[in-house]
């Protein structure tokens, strides 16, 4: 039974609703009614937000032919004895793989920096590591001057690019944001940053200002721009592979600067970050580039700042070829990131360890590569490098930056404190080229692994089985996948894609046939090129 009071309250509620609806109607009716009262709060217009276009971000299509892919197979960690068979569609001289990645057009409108994952395919093989002989210890307290190992550590400089281009023919195509297709010229790789530098014949790209480094701060919104595949659902019935430039939003987590206030690294965070974002170009909300994503860890990414990207490009352009990174031969960790226990574990004791941990300065060496410049100078695990050229080291970025300023072959001053001695020690060490100039960290531990035997110095070759050989018009032998342009082999006439069938009349079936070549006498090799046999004489003393 509903009480009268309740019915009245319901009626009041209904009346209220009707009044509300009437009031709404009054405001929504045509002007004939509303014009009577002056509108004081007009409807707000709608503003359409469009992201700044960032035209300096381009898409790079890096194509590899079959020989380059086999070269990568050979250099990979594969147990690779011989090439047994390849698909009909696998063309040794034709494109078999395309990598699609973002590139950053620098402010000159002509140079592009990009993190090409297959840059190794365009480079000579890593040279065999040759440790320097051990040296007698120097008296403590004195400045020790040590050079790094001599040849063959040094990375041979490639000849001028006109020659290299015709030989290796790097296939790099640039697609701009407005859809233009441009041919790029691969100039080389910067060993320090891992960035490839590509140039155009003319200034064809959008010129724009970079983001001001001082303005980059935590909490700032950034956009990661890079190419991504278009799925079947989106492209509908269109056949083939389609690419679009996608964006991922992220927020700056923190910014690392060196002791000289140079921006060393920007860390960003986003739940949408994936490994696919490596190589993407980071821009701010105005479309100004911040740098290139060079590492991903979980939902965080590291950006190589645009200032360092520009430095990398300058290094490569100055040399007109790839630039190996200067190499000391140590692995270490910044003291600022270590616990006291960790410092105690490597030989430091009591108050000295505590003082070290509190100061949070320097790099603690955890390993030293035998035969490296560091080993030659008698640096040891447990040593702490406090200063480089009198500049205090606060973190790993500082250390990298100071070494980056040096070039391979230049002398660098190090101030070191050791667990066993209280006094600081000064070292003057000549840096070498990295034995693996471009892919160092991974191959660092594999330094003692013997390089694959070479039939002739300066060439990389792989044994091929009869089915592959038949496609090339040969019966078997070694397929040359790389020839060092300034080598004796090249001068004698050996070329990429040749099949070496025999050496001094003996057939070759495996890569380890180097015993057939006598360095003291001239060697005659029979090669198959374009299904035709050629005889080439290699001079003695190669």
């Amino acid at each position, binding site marked *: 039974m509903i009480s009268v009071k309740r019915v009245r309250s319901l009626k009041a509620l209904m009346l209220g609703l009707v009044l509300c609806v009437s009031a709404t109607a009054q405001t929504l009716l045509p002007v004939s009614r509303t014009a009577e009262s002056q509108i004081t709060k007009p*409807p*707000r217009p*709608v503003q359409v937000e469009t992201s700044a276009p960032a035209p300096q971000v381009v898409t790079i299509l890096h194509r590899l032919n079959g020989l380059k892919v086999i070269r990568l197979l050979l250099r990979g960690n594969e147990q690779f004895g011989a090439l047994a068979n390849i698909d009909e569609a696998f063309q040794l001289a034709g494109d078999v793989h395309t990598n699609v990645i973002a590139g950053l057009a620098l402010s000159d409108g002509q140079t592009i920096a990009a993190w090409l994952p297959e840059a190794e395919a365009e480079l000579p093989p890593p040279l065999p590591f040759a440790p320097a002989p051990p040296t007698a210890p120097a008296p403590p307290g004195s400045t020790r001057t040590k050079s790094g190992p001599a040849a063959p550590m040094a990375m041979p400089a490639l000849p001028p690019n006109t020659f290299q281009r015709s030989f290796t023919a790097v296939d790099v195509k640039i697609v701009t944001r407005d859809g233009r297709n441009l041919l790029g010229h691969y100039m080389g790789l910067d060993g320090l940053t891992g960035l490839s530098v590509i140039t155009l014949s003319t200034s064809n790209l959008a010129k724009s200002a970079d983001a001001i480094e001082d303005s980059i701060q935590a909490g700032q919104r950034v956009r990661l721009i890079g190419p991504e595949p278009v799925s079947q659902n989106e492209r509908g019935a269109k056949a083939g592979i389609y690419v679009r430039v996608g964006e991922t939003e992220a927020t700056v987590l923190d910014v690392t600067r060196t002791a000289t206030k140079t921006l060393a690294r920007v860390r960003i965070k986003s739940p949408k970050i994936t490994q696919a974002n490596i190589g993407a170009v980071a821009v701010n909300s105005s479309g100004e580039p911040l740098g290139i994503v060079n590492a991903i*860890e979980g939902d965080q990414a590291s950006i190589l700042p645009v200032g360092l990207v520009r430095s990398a490009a300058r290094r490569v352009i100055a040399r007109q070829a790839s630039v190996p990174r200067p190499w000391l031969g140590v692995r270490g960790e910044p003291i600022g990131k270590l616990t006291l226990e960790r410092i105690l574990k490597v030989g430091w004791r009591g108050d000295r360890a505590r003082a070290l941990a509190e100061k949070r300065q320097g790099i603690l060496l955890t390993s030293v590569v035998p035969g490296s410049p560091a080993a030659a100078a008698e640096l040891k695990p447990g040593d702490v490098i406090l200063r480089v050229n009198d500049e205090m080291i606060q973190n790993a970025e500082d250390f990298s930056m100071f070494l980056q300023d040096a070039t391979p072959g230049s002398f660098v001053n190090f101030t070191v404190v050791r667990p066993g001695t209280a006094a600081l020690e000064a070292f003057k060490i000549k840096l070498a080229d990295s034995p693996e100039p471009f892919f160092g*960290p991974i191959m660092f531990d594999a330094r003692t692994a013997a390089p694959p035997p070479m039939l002739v110095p300066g060439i990389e070759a792989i044994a091929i089985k009869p089915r592959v050989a038949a496609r090339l018009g040969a019966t078997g032998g070694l397929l040359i996948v790389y020839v060092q342009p300034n080598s004796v082999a090249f001068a004698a006439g050996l070329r990429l894609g040749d099949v070496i069938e025999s050496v001094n009349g003996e057939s070759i079936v495996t890569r380890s046939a180097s015993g057939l070549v006598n360095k003291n006498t001239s060697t005659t090799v029979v090669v198959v090129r374009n299904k035709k046999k050629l005889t080439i004489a290699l001079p003695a003393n190669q």
Partner: protein
Amino acid sequence: MNKTDCRNVRREIEEAATGELLTTRVREHLSRCASCATFGDEQQELKNMVAGLGTVEAPADFDFKLRARLAASRSARRDVLSGNGFGIRSVAFATLVLLLGFAVLMMDVRSRSTDSAPAARASGPASESNSRTAPVNENKPSEEARAGTSPTNSSNPSHVQTNPSGRQVAKSNGSSLSQFTVARNGQVKATDLSASPAPVLRPTETRMGSSVFPLGTSYQSLKVSVDDGRGSSRTISLPTVSFGSSRVLARNPAPVNAGLRDSW
């Protein structure tokens, strides 16, 4: 036997790679502890079994398909966030607004039928200025005004328009935004809107617009058979396309990662 010792030894056994020699300390412990020795044997057997299994290779187009799906998924999320996607709440809200509008319309129709007094139609040319107030003769509505244009603002027609019903709308002419309203006394009041924030719409990316381009290749997995030099061979499937940092051979070392470097 100390439980901590056993735990440490077992962890070391678990972490040891197949064929890797155990440390002297572990071997000594195994000679004394039957339980750990059994555990070690079991682990060894398990590792041998796993090592004996063939290598499972992902399809060659796995990476491509995964990236395409990730990209599509991201794009779909963007659509939803930016307003092109309609969730249940959006539909419910739209229905409610429609119902309310219908009710208002019905009430208006009813009120019109009972109201015999003619409604005063407000119309008149808009002012020529963005922010100043100008007199308007309400009693002499011009044809131009009814047609939506005004002689006085013909130099800037996009700025203010009056629609056929006499209601005025504001339009942006670039840098400044103004809203004009007509009072009963014939005066137009202009309100500068540039000081108040506007609702923001973010357009979604054109899916197959100019930013999408064909790669000029179709997906095809290429097979290469390699011999390990000891008589056994295997086939490697190579993708014809890779995006970003993914490599043609997943096992090849990644290029230098300057951000995470700890070796110099």
